[in-house]
């Protein structure tokens, strides 16, 4: 069992009469990536800002291991906010060193680390380049480096992949995974479900400020992500509704999706497909995190043991 570094209990925050976040609890463990997901306006950034002390939560507690006070010790936490930028007319190295200094990290070490990371992210030799000369993607890389320059124990990344091209997304993904493998506790919020699916260990899905789904990636998949069979071909929905283990049939043009029971045995089930079905393509897979997310966002009923 990995060690819990940060626990958030019953966090709540309101603006005027509107409750933005209500009764949110979760923990972030060393060496693990915890993803906080939810549609726009779900309360992700509010939760993160409350943890960072940028906002004052109305209720709940935030406990950092070995830190007697409420909240997090700033020098041990790296933070990449959703709304981020860099001073424009400053050299990359200067700004990274400034952020390291704010975290009380030794300058010499910071410089060596910055050079390493710039090289890793393909920005070698650009340490003296002014920020305004960088492309958006390059600036994002510089921001990322600035957030991890002081070897944080806890790294909080709010939408780290937004605005990145697929190649850079892969670079970030690998780096995040590697940091976790080296023992950093990571809390990440993102809309890119495919990327989250690949790197997250734990999940917290919130909607309208409340926890909807919580657990490890396996548990969530186990609970919510049943098999589904997608058939491309001109078929009537009624052709499949009576089949064993089929919970729900959705038809959209020539595409028919059959949501299956949790305890279905796929090799046996395949033989039940009617002979008269028109099949141009057929795939059997699990409902993805993306579909779970869309289900939550569109407020379709989630069934733990069924389709969406």
């Amino acid at each position: 069992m990995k060690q819990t570094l940060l626990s958030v209990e019953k966090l709540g925050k309101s603006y005027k009469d509107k409750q933005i976040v209500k009764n949110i609890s979760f923990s972030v463990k060393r060496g693990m990536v915890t993803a906080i997901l939810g549609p726009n306006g779900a309360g992700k950034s509010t939760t993160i800002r409350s943890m960072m002390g940028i906002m004052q939560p109305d209720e709940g507690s935030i406990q950092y291991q070995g830190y007697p006070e409420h909240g997090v010790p700033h020098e041990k936490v790296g933070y990449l906010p959703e709304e981020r930028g860099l001073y424009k007319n400053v050299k990359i190295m200067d700004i990274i060193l400034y952020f390291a200094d704010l975290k009380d990290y030794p300058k010499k070490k910071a410089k060596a680390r910055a050079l390493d990371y710039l090289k890793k992210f393909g920005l070698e030799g650009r340490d003296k380049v002014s920020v305004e000369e960088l492309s958006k993607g390059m600036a994002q890389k510089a921001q990322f480096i600035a957030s991890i320059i002081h070897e944080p124990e806890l790294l909080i990344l709010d939408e780290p992949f937004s605005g990145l091209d697929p190649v850079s997304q892969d670079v970030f993904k690998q780096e995040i995974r590697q940091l976790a493998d080296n023992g950093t506790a990571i809390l990440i919020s993102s809309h890119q479900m495919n990327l989250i699916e690949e790197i997250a260990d734990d999940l917290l899905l919130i909607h309208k400020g409340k926890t909807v789904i919580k657990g490890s990636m396996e548990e969530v998949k186990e609970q919510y992500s049943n098999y589904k069979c997608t058939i491309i071909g001109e078929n009537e929905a009624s052709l499949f509704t009576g089949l064993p283990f089929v919970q729900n049939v959705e038809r959209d043009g020539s595409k028919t999706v059959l949501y299956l029971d949790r305890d279905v045995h796929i090799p046996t089930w395949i033989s039940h497909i009617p002979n008269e079905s028109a099949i141009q393509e057929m795939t059997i897979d699990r409902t993805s995190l993306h579909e779970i997310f869309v289900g939550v966002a569109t407020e379709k009923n989630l069934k733990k043991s069924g389709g969406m």
Partner: protein
Amino acid sequence: MRNTWKVAKWEYKRNATNKSFIISTLLTPVIFLLFAFLPSMFSGSESSNDPEAMKVYIQDEVGLASRVEAFVNNKESFNWELEFVEENKESVLSSVPEEENQAFVSLTEDTIQNGVVEVETSEEVTDSFFAQLQLLRQPIQDYQFKQLGLTEYQLQQITAGVSFETSEAAAASSGVGGADQSGAVKGELIVPGIFALIVLIAIVLTGMMIFQSASQEKKEKVSEIVLSSMKPNELMQGKIIGYFGLGISQVTIWLGFGIPLAAWRMEDVPILQYLFVPELLIMVFIAILGYLLFAALFVGFGATVEDISSSSNFQGFIMMLPFLPFVFIGPILNNPSGLAATIGSFIPFTSPAVLIMRMAMLEDWPWLEIGFALVVLMISVWLMIKLAGKIFEVGILLYGKNATPKEIWKWVRA
């Protein structure tokens, strides 16, 4: 506090190494010097050595030659080439109108009798010639008195003239301080006053950069990263201190040029002696209070503006506040103890400049009034910093729009 210093250091370094800042710091005194000296270079003022010499012929029939010559040679600013003529007056007179910068002065018995000196000049004469000519009155008058047979003592009495010494009745009866002050030359405090005003103007102008800095921080969305390491108040104070350092550096450079230059140009005023007096400390203290007031105002309201070009008149009005004291310049010069001056001393946005101006002009400082004004100013500074802190805290994280006065009011009350 450590974080405050880190921010201050960063803001200082970031701006001090900025090319436009360096250029403006160095260029300002150059432009100033240019404006100060360009006109005199073209016109050739009285005080500068006139490059053109004046040829002055003097017809001396009464034996004043030696006196006039001694007098002219004594005056450095006189660039006269003297020639005494006795016989060939006609030929000299005929040549004068044709030449440039020539004059013919005739000193005859009639001159001494009537007191009228005939002078004929060429069409062009040097700018300062007529002013210099007036000064010749002295040797001529001396001669006249001598002719009248006055004694040396009588001469002194006549030439001393009559002067009026005035003093206010109230000041005389005010007691101990008054007697000591009576010897002080009026205008002595103008030197530290001007010094403090320059400091005030320079640091308040740099303070206006804070507005931009806060607004930029918000626009470029750096604040949230910075605020994950410190409290908003630390960031705000760091900015205020950092820009204060910048302003002081700038004014040090300017005065580093300015004071030696002023000392050199105005040889007869012992500038350094006038400058380093205890009063200077109070004046500079007032200037610093003025800076703090405006810096807090700007940092607070800068945090409410993301796009300066689309900001409302409200924020524009705030930027105008430092220029408010200009309204009081006229009334203060007219009467530094008048009603307008007193009112200006108690309005926080005008009081730093108004107080310094008044202190520079008044021989006897109205200590009670100054004390009250200082208390009002210090309380205002404290309130403004509190207020700015509240506005800054919310404003800096409000992305995507400029705050309205209504919103700002709500934050202040929160």
